[in-house]
Structure formats: C-alpha cells, structure tokens
C-alpha cells in the first residue's frame, strides 16, 4: 500500500459544478498537507496549504484535513474550464521545505 492514495480519474464535470477531490494516507507523521495543480507539460504549482487538521478557504477553493481519519479533501466551487488540470495531493512531516510525498494525481476536466 502506498503512503498516499488518490483516485487518478479522469473526472469530468460540467462548468459551474462543485468538484470534490480527496486522498487518504497512512503515515500519521504527516502534518503538512498541500494541493498542487499541474497543467500538461508544466511543473506542479502550489494551490493550497494546511497545517494539521482543519479547513482553509481561498477564493473558490477549500481544503479540508481530517487527521483522525487520515483523509484530505479539496473542493472547487463554480468550476471553470481553466480549472482543467491534474490535481496532486501532497504531504510532508516536517514542513513545506521537507521532502513531499505526492498522490498519483486526479485528472480533472471541466466541460464548457
């Protein structure tokens, strides 16, 4: 079993829908939880970052972490075609500049 599990999709939703992406993990040492967005032939870019359990909102994006269940989520409201990308959940034990363990990534398509 991999340390971080993520459904690879693809996930196709109509424009304007709410998107829900999630990951589970097994290593209880993880304390820093991130979501990266990766467009084709580009490097990942940090979208959301959360320390420990809780929720964090940034515009149309909300990240949730439930450490008791080892489950993290990313919600995208009012999805746009420009949101079409691969979304990678990621986590680390010691900080954002520690080695990051990534999920496999979920390919998301927003249909106009």
């Amino acid at each position, binding site marked *: 079993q991999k340390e971080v599990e993520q459904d690879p999709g693809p996930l196709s939703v109509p424009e304007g829908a709410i998107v829900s992406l999630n990951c589970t993990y097994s290593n209880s040492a993880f304390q820093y939880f991130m979501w990266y967005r990766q467009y084709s032939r580009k*490097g990942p870019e940090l979208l959301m970052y959360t320390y420990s359990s809780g929720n964090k909102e940034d515009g149309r994006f909300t990240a949730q972490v439930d450490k008791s269940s080892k489950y993290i989520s990313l919600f995208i409201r009012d999805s746009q075609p420009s949101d079409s990308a691969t979304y990678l959940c990621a986590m680390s034990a010691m900080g*954002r*500049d520690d080695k*990051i363990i*990534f999920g496999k990534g979920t390919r998301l398509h927003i249909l106009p």
Partner: protein
Amino acid sequence: GAGVSQSPRYKVAKRGQDVALRCDPISGHVSLFWYQQALGQGPEFLTYFQNEAQLDKSGLPSDRFFAERPEGSVSTLKIQRTQQEDSAVYLCAGSLSNNEQFFGPGTRLTVL
C-alpha cells in the same frame, strides 16, 4: 530569472548512455529538491540539498543516479548507463527555508 529553469526540456538517450540534467533555481533558494515523475504518476522524491550539502539522497533509485550542487545554486542530476525504466520527467524544485517549493517545468527523459 523569474522562475526555476531546467535544461534540456527534452532528452532522448540510447540505453546505456549517460545523461546530465540541469536545474537553475530561483536566486536565494537555499533548499533544492529533485523528483522523478513517471507517466500517470505523482512526483517521487529523489534527493535534497541545503545550499551545497546533500542532506537526503534516500530516494535515488540506484547508484547510477548522482546529484550535485557544488556552489549552492545550480544543480545537476546525472544518470549513468541509462535504462528504459529511467524514462520519466525529472522535476527540480527550490524553496526558501520553511517555505513552499517552486517547481521547474521538468526535463522529459526518454530512454530507447
């Protein structure tokens, strides 16, 4: 420069050839990471530098992989006697202390 640059962007090598991949991080980024991203997978950690010191090389898959950062800025990942399973995108990321990692666009290596 404004971001992390990597060169070459694409590299085709014959099996058994040696390759060298270069990373130019953002000026002042003391931490530098290398990740390997196979097709359809998330990035996997290879190695980590703080300035010129290689502090973690636990992710290097074999002794054919070698990384260096002699002056604490530019880094080179070298792969000797390339094998087909080395085909992947090699990503470099840099960060300030305790801050997010900024990724380059990657080098896509294809071993024939």
